């Protein structure tokens, strides 16, 4: 009987001690918020387009960091962003549902614009300038191509144009050898395509 008593007492006492130490450690190493949100947010293209089903990049990052959302919902980011997020979160990559289209720019046909300011209100990055009853125009350097301004326009005067390719931004393609393609297939395999 004393054996059992000793056993319970020592085990319980030891567990209590460990609990107290851990409780103190919890205070010392308390983590404020989820530091992963910012890290995921940093990987997103910040188009604020809402194609992921969340109202913007930050909310999607929050959902991903909380493991509530899959890593493959960012359409403009494409495969590269998906891989980066999967890598950061330590989860299996998943195929991107929708191929990322070529980068686009919104363009206002100014002679048709009636100056209603609805697109200005819709633009998530303040890239449209104009005033009521004045022509609006879109700053090409700041447009993320999110298409959020197309829908509200009452006269449909906003076009989505393909972003012009600049020679300064040209970069070398992969060499066209069989082995280089092998390497790329491997990458796609990792991305869950194969």
């Amino acid at each position, binding site marked *: 009987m004393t054996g059992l008593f*000793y056993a319970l007492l*020592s*085990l319980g006492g030891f567990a209590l001690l460990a609990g107290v*130490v*851990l409780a103190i*450690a919890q205070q010392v190493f*308390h983590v404020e918020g989820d530091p*992963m949100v910012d890290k995921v947010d940093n990987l997103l293209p910040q188009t604020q387009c809402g194609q992921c089903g969340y109202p913007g990049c930050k909310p999607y990052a929050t959902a991903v960091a909380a493991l509530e959302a899959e890593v493959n919902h960012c359409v403009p980011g494409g495969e590269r962003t998906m891989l980066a997020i999967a890598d950061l979160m*330590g989860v299996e990559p998943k195929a991107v549902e929708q191929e990322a289209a070529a980068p686009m720019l919104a363009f206002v046909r100014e002679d048709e614009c009636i100056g209603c300011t609805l697109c200005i209100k819709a633009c998530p990055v303040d890239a449209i300038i104009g005033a009521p009853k004045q022509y609006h125009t879109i700053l090409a350097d700041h447009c993320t191509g999110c298409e959020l301004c197309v829908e509200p326009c009452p006269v449909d005067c906003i076009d989505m144009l393909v972003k012009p390719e600049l020679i300064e931004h040209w970069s070398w393609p992969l060499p066209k050898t069989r082995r280089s393609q092998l390497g790329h297939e491997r990458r796609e395999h990792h991305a869950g395509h194969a």
Partner: protein
Amino acid sequence: MTEIALILLSAVLVNNFVLTKFLGICPFLGTSGKVETAVGMSFAVMFVMTLASVCSWLVQQFILVPLGLEYLQTIFFILIIAALVQFIEMMIHKTSPVLYQALGIFLPLITTNCAVLGVALLNVQQEQTFVTSALYGFGAAVGFALVLILFSGLRERMEVSPVPALFKGSPLTLITAGMMSLAFMGFSGLVKI
């Protein structure tokens, strides 16, 4: 002095926990994808293993043996290890969220890691003293870290090498681990006494 060197050498190379005793295979395969992760895991395991062997020796000598409670060894040791793992988990979460994320489930799983429990139990079995058990725990952890980091380096290289489709992924990983194990077994007979 010779004894200390021998214990360390034995734990790190000759009786390597992972490749000779085949303990702790799970994190060895699970966290060796990237060198950074492997280094983080190695330090976590080093911390837990060394302290676990010290604490378990103390508990064994001053609680279990005097009270005749040797049959509670396993549960006591797991309690110690679990507390240590909880502690390091909080620490890593605070200091390096990315490593925390990368280690994922393998960090709490150190609790049930056979290498950590194994080192505590072996210490008792081999009737080590306080110093030698601490050394043995540390040596075993260094051995674990050594093979884990080596292996992650190999895996990083394999990741970018063209490999026949048949061997992609796990098969090649396991074959490589087997070959590393063969190489480490070559250390037996390293020291003649």
